[in-house]
């Protein structure tokens, strides 16, 4: 996986990015999450967004999922 600067991410970095992407997907698609699941996942996404942004993956804004 390469970032927007054309740099290859390390295995650990790629895992973090995949974790973020997986959480965003769950929050977009799942309508049956319990409050504790959705709100804690949102907090995690807000934090992981900083990682993805800092790795130059251009995550954009994610207000539509509530973060």
């Amino acid at each position, binding site marked *: 996986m390469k970032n927007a600067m054309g740099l290859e991410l390390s295995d650990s970095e790629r895992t973090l990015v995949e974790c973020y992407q997986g959480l965003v997907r769950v929050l977009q698609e799942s309508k049956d999450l319990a409050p504790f699941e959705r709100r804690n996942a949102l907090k995690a996404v807000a934090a992981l967004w900083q990682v993805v942004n800092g790795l130059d993956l251009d995550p954009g804004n994610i*207000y539509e999922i509530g973060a």
Partner: protein
Amino acid sequence: MKESPYWNPRHETMPRDQIEALQVRKLKNLVAWTERQVPWHAARLKAAGVTADSIRSLKDLRRIPLMTRDEWMQAQLEKPPFGPLLAAPEETAIRYHLTSGTTGRIPLQVLDSMKDWEWIAEMWCYGFWGFGVRPADIVFFAFSYGTFVGFWGAHYACEKIGCLVLPGGNMTTEARVKQILSMKATVVCSTPTYALRMAQEAKSIGVDLAGSPVKRLILSGEPAGSIPATKRLIEEEWGAKAADTAGMTEVGTIMIFECAQQPGGTHIIEDHYIEEVVDPVTGDPVGYGELGERLITSFGRGMIPVLRYRTRDLVVRVPATACTCGRTFDIYEGGIRGRVDDMKLVRGTNVYPRAVESIVREFKEIDEFRIHLYTADGRQDEIEVLVEIPDRDGVNADRILGELATSLSQAHEGLRFGVKKVENGSLPRFELKAKRLQDDRIVIGTAGEPRVTA
């Protein structure tokens, strides 16, 4: 693995051409987002012929119209409370803050989403980590925790770093000093003015702050954190290193910080902002080493896009190589030098409050001061500095008053300064932004019409 001295090592040490490529890419994204989400901005961009696709280099930034605080205030008045500036629904916000109001008629009101609020803490992490704050630290915040954003982001940054955070809101100065000692705080965060206030209080209750575990002070909220004399005094009184930072409610957090090398200035967080320095009158860019007004474009808070905002802050930008820390982020030498509207003209001489403070702080015996401008006999501008000099053994107040008057005059083209000793404790103390200048001058020829309106 060796611990990094940088919060984001890749970005903070990026070659200049890559920083600029990153900024151009982010600028393009920001313009695209703003065009799509904020009609108020979209109309301005369209009128200037700016589209995301037309952004190809940093030179294209200059085609984007400047945004002023007046415009922001006017937009809020027309569509209260936030103006037509939000790029996302209000329901996504989790925080509300407003400006502290050193200038302007009404405070600016802002909202942050969960992601934006996390980003606000992220910016403070650059500063805290860069100055050497680590998870083992115990951090005390001498901060009132109200709607002024102040150190809020710094508080969450320290939690993120893993520090033990001591929220020192709603406490007397004495209680704060005592808690700093009893909890063995290693880092203290406050305004420069309040750092000195706590040092005074410690002396009055017989506490030796210099012998305490405090090793670092993180200063913000006033330009004084980069005034060498003020900073030296703070460091001496606390027996600790002090770092300057500066932020603004308009972006929600800090945009500059001083690293552990203490280069006499503050690094710009250039992977999250584009900072320009321009002539405040003509708007033309000024070069390295020249005094000018900073403009800010922020890539952070998506909820309220900020493009080429006129800050009114005066700065002198120098290349990153002025510091030995290895960061490639440029530096504002001397931090924020003052405000464009701070300058006072007294009998033809420019007087900047910051310059006066830097001289006053050379005299350690002075606890507090105020700059007072008035009109004598209804026809002549006068300037006086009122000082508190507590009676202590070996302190000759008359000598200090004389030397201070001479130093002030010499630094201001011979302008005569009155210097008066006032009763101890009679001048106001400040926890947030200090307001030490009082301008009581009248319009000459009138019966007392104030020259400066509130």
